[in-house]
Structure formats: C-alpha cells, structure tokens
C-alpha cells in the first residue's frame, strides 16, 4: 500500500511538472498529450494493481502485475532509446547537409 502511495505521489509530481512545462510553452502539443496519457495510464495501473494482478495471472504469467508493468516499462524505454537514436541520426544528416551547403556556396 505504501509503495502504491509513493508511486502515485511520484506520478502526480511528474504530471504537475508536465502541466507546468505546458503552461510555460516548453513542450510541444503532441509530446504533452503523449506524456499526459502515459502518466495517466501509469497512475491508473497503480490504483488498479489488483485487477492487473488477476489479469496477468489469467493470461498465464507466473509473476505479479507490478513485475509485468516493470518489464513493459523496460521494453518501452528501449523503444524510446531507439527512437531517440534515429532522431539523432536524422539531426546528424541535417547538420552535414548544412555544412556541405556552406562549403559549396563559395565555389560556384
């Protein structure tokens, strides 16, 4: 129970930070909605952890609901790292294009 309260406090803090960032226009609309949904679902998952426990056991997993959430969290983190890596690659390509355009500009 204490763990659930702690997790909920953390999620409320992160949601508050998110709203604060939105208010200060430090986060884009799409990203705000994504994180709002993500943290809201995380909060609901914590509140209804018993239902997730029974759902997980009905699906045939031997571990508890919280463990499954943790595994899903790790998978999600790997996915985010992959997305960031691709975005970084795209930025790298754009920087190269700009560098190239500058170097060729004076050699017409």
């Amino acid at each position, binding site marked *: 129970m204490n763990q659930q309260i702690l997790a909920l406090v953390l999620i409320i803090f992160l949601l508050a930070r998110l709203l604060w960032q939105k208010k200060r226009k430090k986060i884009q609309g799409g990203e705000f909605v994504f994180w709002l949904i993500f943290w809201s679902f995380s909060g609901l998952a914590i509140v209804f952890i018993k239902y997730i426990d029974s759902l997980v056991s009905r699906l045939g997993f031997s571990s508890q609901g919280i463990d499954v959430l943790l595994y899903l969290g790790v998978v999600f983190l790997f996915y985010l790292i992959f997305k960031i*890596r*691709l975005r970084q*690659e*795209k930025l*790298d*390509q754009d*920087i*190269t294009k700009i*560098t*190239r355009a*500058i*170097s*060729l500009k004076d*050699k*017409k």
Partner: protein
Amino acid sequence: MAEKIFCIIPAYNEGGNISSVIKSVGKYVDEVVVVDDGSGDQTGRIAQAERVVVLRHIINRGQGAALETGDQYAKKKQADIVVHFDADGQFSPDEIDRVIAPIKNGQADIVFGSRFLGQANNMPWLKKQVIFPLARMISKLFWRVNLSDPQSGFRAFNKKILDRLRIENDGSAHCSEIIIKAFALNIKIKEVPITVSYNNFGQSIFGGKGRGMGGVQIIRDLIISKIIN
C-alpha cells in the same frame, strides 16, 4: 574529347601529409579537390597554398560526408571520372592510372582498389584479421555483396555513377555503402589490386581519426542505415 578527371581528397588534420599528396596526385588528374573536413590544424591553408580547390567543412563531419561534398562539386564542374583518394599518403598515386583504366576503356563504371588482390602491403594484424573479415561478413550477410576489400578508400567511377550514387553515411561506413549501392545499380564493377603503405595506424576497433572511423562505429552505422533506409 579528353575526359575530365577529378581527384577528391577528404582531409582531416593532415597538415603533415596533404602537400605531398596533392603534389604527387596532381600529375595524374585534371583537378584536385581537397575537402578540409573541419581540421584543427593547417590542412586547409596548406592545401590552398598548392593552388588546388579547397572545400571547407566548418565542423568535422566524417570522411563519407567530405567525399560526398567533393562529389557534388565534381558533378557541378561536369567531371567525367572521379577518383577518391586518401590524404594520409598511404595510397600510391602512380596507381591512379591503373584504377581508372577500366573506366576509360569501358570495362567498368566503377573500380574499387583492393588490398587483397596480390599487391604486397604491410597491413596491421587487427585490420587484416579482425576488422576486414568482420566487414566482409556483414556486407555478405546483410547485402549479399561480395568484394575482396569492403573498406578500400581508393576507388574511381564515371559520370553515370556520379549522377546516381549519393553517399549518405558520414563516417567510414561509406566504403561499404558505395559498394552496396553500386551492386544495387546493376552496373559494371571491377576490382583492381592496389598497394597500401601503412605509415600510421589511424583506425582501430573503437575509434579513429575523425568521425565514425572505428570498426565498431562502421558496423553500427551500416546497421542503422539499413534500418533507416
């Protein structure tokens, strides 16, 4: 009409070699283009003193990026044959004629210099036994491309390739990229033996001189470009 031959030399902190490389290459080609890839030393200034075209990247972008910059310049200047040549003085300029000969006589659209076709060279053990076998394996596994030297920087190609092939890998993975794209274009490809004299060991498994130069980075870049493209 005589063909216009351009030699593209990507250079990163090669102040000690660039002057002699330009001088030695100059007699085999019509125009030498040095791409100073954000060097922190006097590479660009020394090259300019040799009265060749110098294109300057304001920041280091890697050998592949520098070659693509040179290629775009050569295309703009309507080059007929383009030669890629390293700035570290490890290639033999007198082999340029041999590399471009199959293009001149119509036997090939692109020619790759190979360090594994009989010419003697003092290749470091790590490259010979680890980096190149690994690069060959990856090229075969992912792209079904089979050439003896997957990482040779000494190559030449004609206008057809210049128009159709874009180098997208900024680092050293461009070597494999060019080979893969050449095979996909279904053109005439030839390998010729070249000699390489290793005066220093500028590339290792985890890093090298400039961006994206280590063996691991090459493999990583190839896999990422496979996912992106």
